C-alpha cells in the first residue's frame, strides 16, 4: 500500500516537486547514520545564511549594550537562549530591577515569540523520530529558524543524514555568540537596526524559502488560509501569536483537503 510506503517520509513525499522513489519493501524508519560528510554539508548549507545571522546577532549585541546589559549577560543570553527575535524583544522589555512577576512575564513573552519552534519541530519530527531521544534532546537545543529552513530543504531533496542539522546548528551557534559580542563591542555604532534593514533579515529568509517550497497552485490553498488567518490574528492580538495561529490554520486546511498534496 502506498500509504505505508510513505510512512516516515511524509515531508519528503509531499514537499518535493519530484519525489525520490522509495522502494516499498524497505523499512522506512531506519535512521540514516550521522556522518562527518553530513555535518560538512550542513556547514556549507548554513554558510550562505551566516552573513544575515551575523548582522542580526550584531544588532542584538548592540541593543544589549545600549540597554546597559552586562557583557556576561549578553553572552549568556546568546549562548543559552539562542533565538534572535525573542532576544531582541527581550531587550525591549529589559529593566534594571527584576521581580518574580517580571521574570515570569518575560518567560511567557519569550515562549509566544518562539512558539513557531513548536510547529517547526513538529514538521520535521518524522525525520527526528528515527534517532534516539538523547540525540534529539541535544540537537534540538541548537534548532533555529535557519536550521529548520536547511532541514526542510534538505529533506525535500531526499536527504536523511541528521548530521546536516547538527553541523549547521553548532556552526551557527558559535557564529551567533561571536557576532553578539562583536555587536556588543561596537555598541551604539549599529544601535539603529532599522536603518540598515536588519529588522528584515528574518522576514527575507522566510520569504526566500517560499521558492524552494513551491509545488504548484494546488499546494497554495493552505498557504493562503495561513496568510489570511495570520493577518486577521495580527490585527486582533498583539505580539507574535499570529505565527502559530496562522500556521495551524494552514496545516489543518492541508490535513482536510480531499485531493492529495
Amino acid at each position: 500500500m502506498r500509504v505505508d510506503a510513505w510512512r516516515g517520509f511524509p515531508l519528503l513525499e509531499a514537499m518535493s516537486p519530484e519525489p525520490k522513489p522509495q522502494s516499498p519493501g524497505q523499512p522506512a524508519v531506519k535512521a540514516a547514520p550521522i556522518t562527518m560528510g553530513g555535518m560538512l554539508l550542513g556547514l556549507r548549507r548554513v554558510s550562505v545564511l551566516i552573513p544575515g545571522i551575523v548582522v542580526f546577532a550584531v544588532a542584538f549585541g548592540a541593543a544589549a549594550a545600549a540597554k546597559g546589559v552586562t557583557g556576561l549577560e549578553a553572552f549568556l543570553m546568546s549562548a543559552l537562549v539562542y533565538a534572535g527575535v525573542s532576544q531582541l524583544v527581550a531587550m525591549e522589555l529589559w529593566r534594571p530591577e527584576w521581580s518574580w512577576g517580571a521574570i515570569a512575564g518575560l518567560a511567557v513573552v519569550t515562549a509566544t515569540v518562539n512558539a513557531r519552534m513548536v510547529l517547526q519541530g513538529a514538521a520535521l519530527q518524522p525525520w527526528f523520530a528515527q534517532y534516539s531521544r538523547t540525540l534529539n534532546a541535544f540537537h534540538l537545543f541548537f534548532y533555529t529558524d535557519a536550521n529548520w529552513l536547511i532541514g526542510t530543504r534538505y529533506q525535500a531533496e531526499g536527504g536523511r543524514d541528521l548530521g546536516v542539522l547538527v553541523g549547521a546548528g553548532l556552526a551557527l551557534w558559535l557564529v551567533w555568540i561571536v557576532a553578539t559580542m562583536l555587536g556588543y563591542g561596537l555598541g551604539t555604532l549599529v544601535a539603529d537596526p532599522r536603518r540598515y534593514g536588519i529588522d528584515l533579515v528574518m522576514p527575507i529568509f522566510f520569504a526566500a524559502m517560499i521558492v524552494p517550497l513551491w509545488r504548484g497552485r494546488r499546494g497554495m490553498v493552505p498557504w493562503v488560509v495561513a496568510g489570511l488567518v495570520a493577518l486577521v490574528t495580527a490585527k486582533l492580538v498583539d505580539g507574535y501569536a499570529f505565527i502559530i495561529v496562522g500556521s495551524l490554520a494552514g496545516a489543518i486546511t492541508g490535513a482536510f483537503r480531499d485531493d492529495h498534496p
Partner: protein
Amino acid sequence: MTIPDPGTWGPMLAILAMAVATYLCRISGVALMSVIPLTPHVRRGLAALPGSIVVATVLPLIERLGVAAGIALLVAVGTMILRRSELLALITGMAAISALRAFGF
C-alpha cells in the same frame, strides 16, 4: 514564608527563564508529534505546515513593517526565483530596504 526577591540575580534568572521557555518550545513540537499517530490527515497537515509557517510569519510582518518592507521582500523572492541563492536574496532585499528607507519610504 515569602520567597526573597530576585535582587542582583534578577538578570541571570530572567535569562535562565528565557532559556528554559525557548528550549521547551524547541522540544515540545517533536515530543507532541511522537505521541500523535501519523495518519494520512496528520501527514497532509504536516506537509502543508512549512509553507504555512513561512506565509503566516511573513504576511503580517509586511503589514506591520510597511510597503517598503513588502517591496524589499518581493525583490528577495524575485532574486531567489532567478538565482536560487539565499545570500543573494538577502543582499538584494536589504539593499532594497536600505535604499527605500534612505529615500524616506
